[in-house]
């Protein structure tokens, strides 16, 4: 992966937030395109787990309609969580992360770029696939739309929260389980409001309050969590 670090870091040019963002975003996307297996695995996991629930709890249409939004949200949350190690851990292991810290671009820029690329590779495909899974659960078309909207607002928050947690756990013993203990409790509010929006729509109530809270959470997360992730990376590389 070091090839991708060397080109484009722009050692000679002055750094900028946008420069770092676009460089890291393009690099991580290029890596994902060259190893499409990892992204596809996350999507396959999402579809597989969501398909297991009707087999486990029984296939009565009313029950499936009732639990559908919640199950799809939990699956999206687990899929986003499983893809977190790819965000910083591989770059930390092979030393690329330290090279990036030497670049003239501000840390928040390239860290945000990496987080955005993580969302494009995990949250975006899950959001795009969610209506298809919703059909498996017999959800109404308007509920499908609200489910997709809540995922579109909520999965970026998962990527942002997850980025800070995975950066904190860099180089820790018992990495995977520790990351679950750190990240999953913080994901809880996103799950509640995300699934709540689709549930409210299914119960003919307005999903607007849930979506507004998700949107507010997204704005807050975008403004603060990249800096938390940077602080955590500094602690790890220090």
């Amino acid at each position, binding site marked *: 992966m070091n090839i991708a670090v060397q080109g484009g870091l722009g050692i000679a040019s002055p750094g900028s937030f946008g420069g770092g963002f676009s460089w890291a975003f393009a690099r991580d996307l290029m890596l994902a395109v060259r190893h499409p297996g990892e992204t596809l695995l996350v999507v396959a996991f999402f579809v597989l787990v969501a398909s297991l629930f009707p087999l486990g709890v029984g296939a009565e249409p009313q029950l499936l309609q009732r639990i559908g939004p919640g199950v799809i949200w939990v699956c999206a949350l687990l899929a986003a969580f499983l893809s977190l190690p790819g965000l910083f851990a591989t770059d930390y292991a092979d030393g690329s992360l330290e090279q990036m810290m030497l670049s003239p671009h501000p840390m928040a820029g390239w860290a945000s770029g990496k987080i955005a690329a993580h969302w494009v590779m995990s949250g975006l495909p899950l959001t795009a696939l969610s209506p298809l899974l919703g059909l498996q659960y017999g959800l109404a078309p308007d509920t499908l739309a609200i489910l997709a909207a809540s995922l579109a607002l909520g999965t970026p928050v998962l990527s942002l929260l997850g980025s800070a947690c995975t950066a904190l756990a860099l180089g820790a013993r018992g990495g995977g389980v520790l990351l679950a203990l*750190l990240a999953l409790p913080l994901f809880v509010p996103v799950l509640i409001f995300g699934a709540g929006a689709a549930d409210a729509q299914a119960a003919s109530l307005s999903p607007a309050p849930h979506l507004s809270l998700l949107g507010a959470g997204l704005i807050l997360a975008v403004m603060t969590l990249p800096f938390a992730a940077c602080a955590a990376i500094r602690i790890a590389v220090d």
Partner: protein
Amino acid sequence: MNWFYFSSPASFYRLAGWTAPWFFAASLLLGIAGLYVAFMVAPTDAQQGEVYRVIFLHVPAAWMSMFLYFIIACYGAATLAFRARLAAMMARALAPTGAMFTFLALWTGSFWGRPTWGTYWVWDARLTSELVLLFLYFGLIALSNAFEDPRRGDRAAALLAIIGVVNLPIIYFSVHWWNTLHQGSSVNMQGASMHVAMLWGMLLMALCFWTYAIGVAMVRVRSIILERERRTRWVRGLAR
């Protein structure tokens, strides 16, 4: 007077040794007084009967669970901003006590909920956010012990504590923001909507828990200091 005299682990070790027994003694006396008021003086509740007496443990434990997390986050900020060694050690020493109080609040709450609500557990906002607080405590303890270098664990846990502080207002205001089964608070800045003996019982128990938390943190921080500073001359001098 040198304000930073006790920020050195060596001098704080001695201070903690002197003060810990006093905090435990105060905690014992306050606990006896608080339990006496709780069981002998406070009247039986008109609606809930004798069951309500769980609040003398439940409410102070819930207060302490949130308050200790806040203190840990403050120590975390001091760790990151000033690289204060002792602040990180205090955060480490307080975390297990905070987790214990969170568990106690959940446990006593479910014992109260069974006869009063008819269920041990409901997924309302107050209970869920308190459960998230318990997991945050577990995450803090796990993260601070997850690294070979304890200083690295200190700083990572400090940052996690600061991120997790978002949960505190959610717990505190959950009964106002959402329509929860958990009742709103009976004690606030404008006064308390309860019998004065009940209020005194709760305050005495809160002070008992508070002094206990300080005492046990002092004992624990002494072991942490000894472990961290084991290569220094003053610790070797103690062993001689």
